[in-house]
């Protein structure tokens, strides 16, 4: 029997994360009973801007809702089949299909798997548009639900590293649109918009993103204190409510816990024999492939551009990925600015720190970031999920593979679907994974822990 070299311990914040997520969906569901407002939109939808409408404004972000549907496999399949029946093409964004499918079923699923009858119609949509689907998603959702007004911000993800002046143009364009969007929201809700509430929410959002980046950065340690399957349950607050104080408080607590684990040498799995970096959203109905790699090979995913992408990052002089600073750490006081300047500063901070940008706009920068992640997080391979459910994040993946392979980075690709459980061949993918792991020299746990 091999001696255990470090301890494992359940995460104390785990239960809290589940409770907070449940509360988020409940809030949306029950918003009208509280006299509040419901709105829906994409994950990166500048939520702090909408927060200016009041503390009783609750949102539903489409992508995480679609992921929840997929994770609850039977409901996900029912939603997908409702779309099939309605003639909606099967290869469209699988999150969007889960969302549309839920409307068609007139059902809403909570994170504990409870299905509620009656789809909670939002009062309006506020979203961004950066892939082909975002604005079109809510355009059609509004038609299905019946005349829900939509405002979508056309987001140009220009990387400042490529062209600073062009980047500033894109921020000007986004600022103009968001400023107009504020007036639009006032009109459709009949409410005033509070600059103070916006500033508070913007500070929360930037703090939440920065804290999540710090947590992700701790995973460079060996053993890694987190494995990505658990990270999926934690990053979610930055996809649903990064602008809430509860999210900041939660991430602070999680960060403290991870620091404590690092101090005491507690790893995420034992044995940690092999580290890899993942790419793209996972197949939510088949997260068991992560467990399979852990249990068979002691292999864990230390992160991905996707999971890290919900933080906020900056690059060090040596190209290292570093957590971006909060407004307070940068000495920025939004309240001292005029409204448009504050909006611009907030947008710039969100967009600049968003690693998801390069994924859509330049193949070169994505590859550079993947290489950096691989090196800095001390990985031994890359596993790329060729995601049939998301044309956006599968953009450039084959090129990424080519470029990474040129650097002698072992790359494994498998095909699946983040949101449609029907698009996954578990036995075949397990077989392929086993072959890959054997080829890269990973030994099975059953062969002994060294």
């Amino acid at each position, binding site marked *: 029997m091999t001696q255990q070299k470090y301890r494992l311990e359940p995460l104390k914040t785990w239960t809290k994360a589940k409770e907070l997520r449940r509360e988020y969906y409940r809030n949306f569901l029950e918003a009208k009973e509280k006299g509040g407002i419901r709105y829906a939109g994409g994950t990166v939808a500048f939520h702090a801007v909408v927060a200016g409408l009041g503390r009783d404004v609750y949102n539903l972000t489409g992508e995480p809702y679609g992921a929840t549907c997929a994770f609850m496999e039977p409901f996900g399949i029912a939603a997908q089949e409702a779309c099939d029946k309605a003639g909606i093409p099967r290869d469209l964004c699988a999150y969007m299909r889960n969302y549309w499918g839920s409307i068609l079923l007139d059902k809403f699923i909570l994170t504990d798997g409870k299905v509620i009858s009656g789809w909670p119609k939002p009062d309006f949509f506020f979203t961004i548009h950066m892939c082909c689907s975002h604005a*079109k998603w809510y355009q059609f959702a509004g038609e299905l639900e019946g005349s829900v007004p939509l405002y979508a911000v*056309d987001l140009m993800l220009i990387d400042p590293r490529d062209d600073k002046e062009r980047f500033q143009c894109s921020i000007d364009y986004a600022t103009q649109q968001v400023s*107009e969007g504020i007036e639009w929201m006032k009109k459709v809700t009949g409410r005033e918009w509070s600059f103070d509430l916006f500033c508070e929410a913007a500070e929360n959002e930037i703090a939440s993103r920065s804290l999540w980046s710090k947590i992700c950065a701790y995973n460079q340690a060996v053993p890694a204190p987190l494995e990505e399957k658990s990270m999926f349950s934690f990053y979610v607050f930055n996809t649903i409510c990064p602008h809430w104080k509860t999210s900041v408080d939660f991430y602070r607590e999680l960060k403290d816990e991870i620091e404590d684990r690092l101090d005491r040498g507690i790893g995420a799995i034992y044995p940690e024999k092999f580290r890899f970096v993942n790419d793209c959203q996972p197949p939510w109905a088949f997260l068991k492939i992560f467990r399979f790699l852990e249990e068979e090979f002691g292999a864990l995913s230390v992160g991905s551009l996707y999971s890290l992408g919900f933080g906020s990052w900056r690059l060090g002089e040596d190209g290292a990925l570093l957590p971006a600073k909060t407004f307070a750490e940068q000495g920025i006081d939004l309240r001292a600015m005029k409204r448009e300047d504050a909006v611009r500063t907030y947008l710039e901070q969100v967009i600049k720190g968003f690693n998801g940008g390069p994924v859509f706009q330049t193949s070169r920068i994505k590859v550079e970031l993947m290489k950096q992640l691989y090196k800095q997080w001390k990985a031994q391979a890359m596993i790329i999920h060729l995601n049939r459910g998301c044309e956006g994040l*599968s*953009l450039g993946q084959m090129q990424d593979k*080519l470029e990474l392979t040129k650097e002698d980075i072992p790359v494994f690709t498998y095909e699946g679907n983040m949101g449609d459980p029907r698009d996954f061949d578990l036995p075949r993918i397990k077989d392929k994974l086993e072959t890959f792991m054997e080829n890269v020299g990973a030994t099975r746990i059953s062969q002994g822990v060294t």
Partner: protein
Amino acid sequence: MIDRFSDWVSHRHEYAKEWKKRVGGKVIGYFCTYTPEEILYAADLLPVRIFGAHEAETSIVEPYIYGMYCPFCRDCLAQGLKGKYDYLDGIVIAQSCLHMRQAFWAWQKYIPHEFDHYLFMPHGIQNVGRYEFLHAELTRFKGALESWLGKSITGADLNRGIEICNENRHLMRQIWEFRKLDTPPITGLEAMDITMSSQITDKREHNKAMTQLLKELPERRLDRETGTRLMIIGSENDDREFTKMVEQEMNLPATFVIEEHCIGSRYFWNNVAHEKDRLMAISKRYIDRPPCPNKDWPMRTRFSHILGLIEEYKVEAVILMQQKFCDPHELDKVPLERFFNERNIPNYFLEFDVTQPTGQFRTRVEAFLETMLELV
């Protein structure tokens, strides 16, 4: 006369190579019709749209493009990788769908060329700031071309570019008027050859050919029955075989009298209006043109445009064609079908790939015409 257009389409590569030799200029390939050709003409370049070849074998793209990307973008890249476009000096894309962006990225990285440019064309064509943002992008594009070519593009050059393109659009609109007639003297296939060839030849030559055609059209009589007046709507449609099959090989006569896709009418429908700031005028033209579905939000402007065409061209039935995996058009599929069904406009959906099952499509289209139009 009309054969000239189809000849250009069939021999597009030979044409471009011969043009280079004859004129001594550079040729630039573009990936989407949101690319401002006016600026390319102003720079004395020959813009050619990159098309596929409908060859069954496109496995050459597998290492570069994921299989769930549309056959059109894969076919385009395949032609580049096979060296069919080896005469291109540069490439440009005006931001459109993710699939064409992928083809552009791979071309940019793996196919030798002198110049490339990614033009951030706004998607929010109904949003505040759109004209100004595109204006800045056009300025940047013009500057990039000037640096590459080592010469400045003057206001007079831009005027020339605008005139060439506007004349081309104007002439095509005049030809399209003939398609409104009860017995159109021009088929859908011929119309397709005219627009396709406009995208791959020097428009000055193309304009001359269209001017000549316009003289002949009033007297032109086709030895065929017009049959059902069809409209085709959808993604890029450069599939001549399908068009030919519908118009020439079915038992039931039919003619495509109008189309709404970016190889057809969407490409040339509006002109650049006169404005002192020429780049702003160009910006407005591209923002205000009939939109690609992925830019048609939050309000749906595309459907009313389609309805207008149906009425003007006396369309009796619509074929909705769509490149497999084409998200922008898939996103409009169900709403558009509903739009037609609510108005009792017969419509039929077909999914296209690089090559088509022509026999099967023939049966399906014939059955559609029989059942929807109660012809038998």
